C-alpha cells in the first residue's frame, strides 16, 4: 500500500485495487467563516476480498471519508476533491445521476443503527427489493425471491414470513442482519460498513462479524469504520488510523496493533480494553480531539502527545513510509520508538 504519485490527472492508478482513494479533501461551508476541512488529503486502497479498517475517535472524519466516496454528503459540504477510482472510474468526477447507478448496486452501505437506517413504515420486502427494481436488476417477483434468500443468508429464520414485517417488529440483532441483507441483496463488489457492530450487544457483534467474514471470503471488498480495535483485528486485513481529518498511520492490521508507530495509534491501543488486556493498565489519551476550526499548528496531535518535546512536532508531518506496507505521519516513526 504505497502512496504512488499520479502522473496525469484522471488516469486510474496502476494498482489493481477495487477502490483507490487519492488525496481526498472534503470541506464543509460555514456561515461567515472559512470552510471546515473535515477530510484533508486521505488516500487508501481497498482490495477485492479484503477488509480495510478506518479507525479513530469520533470526529476524526471517518464517516465523512466514506460518505465522500459515495457522494452522500449534506448540502453544506462542497463536492469533494481528489480521486476515488472504482472499476476504472473516478467516483468524484461522476455526476449525481451516474453516482446513483453505482450506489446500492456496486457499492453497498451498512449503517451503525438499523433502527434508524431502515424506514419504520415500510415492510422489509419493500426495503429489500426497491433498489433491485431501481437499478433494473430484476423484476418484482424475482426481487422478492432474492430478498427472501438474502434474509436467509444472514441467518434470519423463516425469511418467507419475516419479509412481510416492519423493522420495529424485529429484535435489534435481527434488524441489524436484515440491514446487511438489504445492502447485500444486489451483490455489490464493495461494502461500506459504518460501525456496524457498535449499536448491538456483544453476542450479536460476533454474528455480524462472521457474516461479514463470509462476504469477504466470497470476494467482496469491505471498508469498516470502527473505533473498536478488537473488531479491526478480528476482521480487517489493513487499517488506516485517522486523526483530525488526516491519515496518521496505515499498516496491515496485525502489524499496526502489535507494533504501533504513531503515538496516536499507541494511545488508542493504550485506551482500548480488549487489546490492552488485564495485565496492562488502561492509559487513556489525555485531552480530546481538536476542534477542526482551530486545528493545532503542525502535527495536529502534538498537544495531546506524550512524546512531543521536539520543535519538529510544531511542523506539518507527512506520511513516512516504513518498509513496504506501512506509513506513519510522525518524524519519530522511522526510528521505531
Amino acid at each position, binding site marked *: 500500500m504505497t502512496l504512488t504519485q499520479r502522473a496525469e490527472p484522471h488516469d486510474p492508478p496502476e494498482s489493481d485495487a477495487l477502490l483507490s482513494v487519492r488525496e481526498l479533501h472534503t470541506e464543509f461551508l460555514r456561515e461567515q467563516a472559512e470552510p471546515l476541512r473535515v477530510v484533508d488529503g486521505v488516500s487508501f486502497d481497498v482490495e477485492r476480498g479484503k477488509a480495510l479498517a478506518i479507525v479513530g475517535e469520533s470526529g476524526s472524519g471517518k464517516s465523512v471519508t466514506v460518505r465522500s466516496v459515495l457522494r452522500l454528503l449534506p448540502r453544506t459540504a462542497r463536492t469533494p476533491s481528489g480521486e476515488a477510482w472504482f472499476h476504472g472510474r473516478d467516483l468524484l468526477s461522476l455526476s449525481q445521476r451516474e453516482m446513483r447507478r453505482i450506489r446500492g448496486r456496486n457499492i453497498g452501505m451498512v449503517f451503525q443503527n438499523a433502527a434508524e437506517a431502515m424506514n419504520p413504515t415500510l415492510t422489509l420486502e419493500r426495503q429489500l427489493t426497491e433498489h433491485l427494481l*431501481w437499478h433494473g436488476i430484476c423484476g418484482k417477483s424475482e426481487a422478492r425471491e432474492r430478498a427472501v434468500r438474502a434474509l436467509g443468508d444472514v441467518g434470519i429464520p423463516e425469511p418467507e414470513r419475516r419479509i412481510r*414485517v416492519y423493522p420495529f417488529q424485529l429484535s435489534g440483532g435481527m434488524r441489524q442482519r436484515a440491514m446487511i441483507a438489504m445492502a447485500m441483496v444486489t451483490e455489490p463488489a464493495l461494502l461500506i460498513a459504518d460501525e456496524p457492530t457498535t449499536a448491538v450487544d456483544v453476542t450479536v457483534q460476533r454474528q455480524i462479524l462472521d457474516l461479514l467474514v463470509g462476504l469477504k471470503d466470497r470476494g467482496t471488498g469491505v471498508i469498516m469504520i470502527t473505533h473498536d480495535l478488537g473488531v479491526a483485528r478480528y476482521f480487517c486485513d489493513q487499517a488506516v488510523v485517522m486523526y483530525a481529518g488526516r491519515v496518521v498511520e496505515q499498516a496491515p492490521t496485525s502489524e499496526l496493533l502489535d507494533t504501533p508507530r504513531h503515538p496516536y495509534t499507541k494511545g488508542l491501543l493504550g485506551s482500548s480494553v480488549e487489546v490492552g488486556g488485564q495485565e496492562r493498565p488502561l492509559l487513556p489519551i489525555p485531552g480530546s480531539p481538536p476542534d477542526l476550526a482551530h486545528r493545532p499548528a503542525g502535527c495536529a496531535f502534538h498537544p495531546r502527545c506524550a512524546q512531543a518535546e521536539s520543535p519538529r512536532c510544531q511542523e506539518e508531518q507527512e506520511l513516512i513510509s516504513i518498509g513496504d506496507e506501512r506509513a506513519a505521519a510522525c518524524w519519530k516513526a522511522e526510528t521505531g520508538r
Partner: protein
Amino acid sequence: MDFLTFLSRRLVRLALCLVAVSIITFTLLQSAPGNFADIQRVTSGASSIGGTGTEQMLAESLSRYGDDVPAWQQYLTFMQGVATWDMGPSYRYAGRAVEDIIGSAFPISATLALLAVTLALLIAVPAGVFAALRQNSKADHSTMFLVTLGNALPSYLVAAFLIVIFSASLGWLPSSGWSRPEHLILPVLALSLGPAAVLARYVRSSMLETLREEYVTAAMAKGGPYRTVIVRHALRNSLIPLVTVVGPLLAALMTGTVFVEALFRIPGLGYYAATAAASRDMPLLMGTVLFFALIIMVVNLAVDLTYGFIDPRIRAEGGWGRSQLRKTSTQPA
C-alpha cells in the same frame, strides 16, 4: 384488545360525552338571560307586524316544552327527541323541524369544508415540501413569508377582499347565494387560505425533520432516484403527523363557519347555530351543538383509526390491527 373492542369502547365513550355536552349546553342556555318569547316580542314588536299570528305560533311551538314544565322535564323531552331523531320544530323557524334544518344545512357546510380542506392540502403539501427541500434559501423564505401572510389574515377578511375583487370590481363571480357551482368558488377560497398556511408550516417542519432521518440517507445510499426517495421515504412519513391537524380542521369547518357563511349568504350550519343562539331557540341550539359535538368526536375517532392504518408502529402498539402483524410482533426474536 382487538379492533372491535377498541371501536366499541370508543363508541361508548362518545355517547357518554354527548350526554355530558347536552347537560352543559342545556344548563348554560337555562341560565342565560332572556328567553325566546321575550326576544321575539321585542324584535317583532318593533316592526309592528307581530300581532296575533306570531303569538299564536309561539304558543304552538312552546307547547312541546311549555313554560309551566320544569326545566329537567324539558331536557328529558328534548333528549328523547334526540334519541328518536325527532327534535320537534324550531322556535325561530316555525314549521321546520330541527332535524330537517340540520339535515339540509349540514351537507352545505360539509361540502364547503371538504373542498376547502382539499384545496388547502393541495396548496400546503407542495409548498411545504418545496420550502423544506430548499431550506434557508430565498425560495424557502419567500414561501414562508406568503404563508405567514395567509396565516395572519382571518377568513372573513379574505372573503371580503375576494368579494371586492372578483364580484364587485371584475364581476366574474357571484358574491352570494347557493344554487350554482360558481357559488362555491369564493367561499372555498376564503376558507382554505388560512388552513393552507397553517398546514404548509406543518408540512415544512415535519419534512425537515424527516429529511434528517438516517433512513432517507440510507435510501439514497441504495441508489434511489431523488424523487422516489423524497416521496416514498421522506414525504410519506412526514405526512403522518399531519393527520392529527387535518382532522380537527375538517371538523371545525364542517360545523360551520359563521362569518363566511353570513358574508356569502350560505344557508350552512354555522349560520343556523348563530341565529339559534342569538334568539335563544332552545331546540335548534341544542340540536346543532350536539351535532357539532358528534362531528368533532367522530372525526377524532376517524383520525385515530387513520393513524393506526397509516403508521404500522401505532397499529402494533394499540394492539389492534391485522392479525398477521400481531402474530409476527409477538414472535420471540
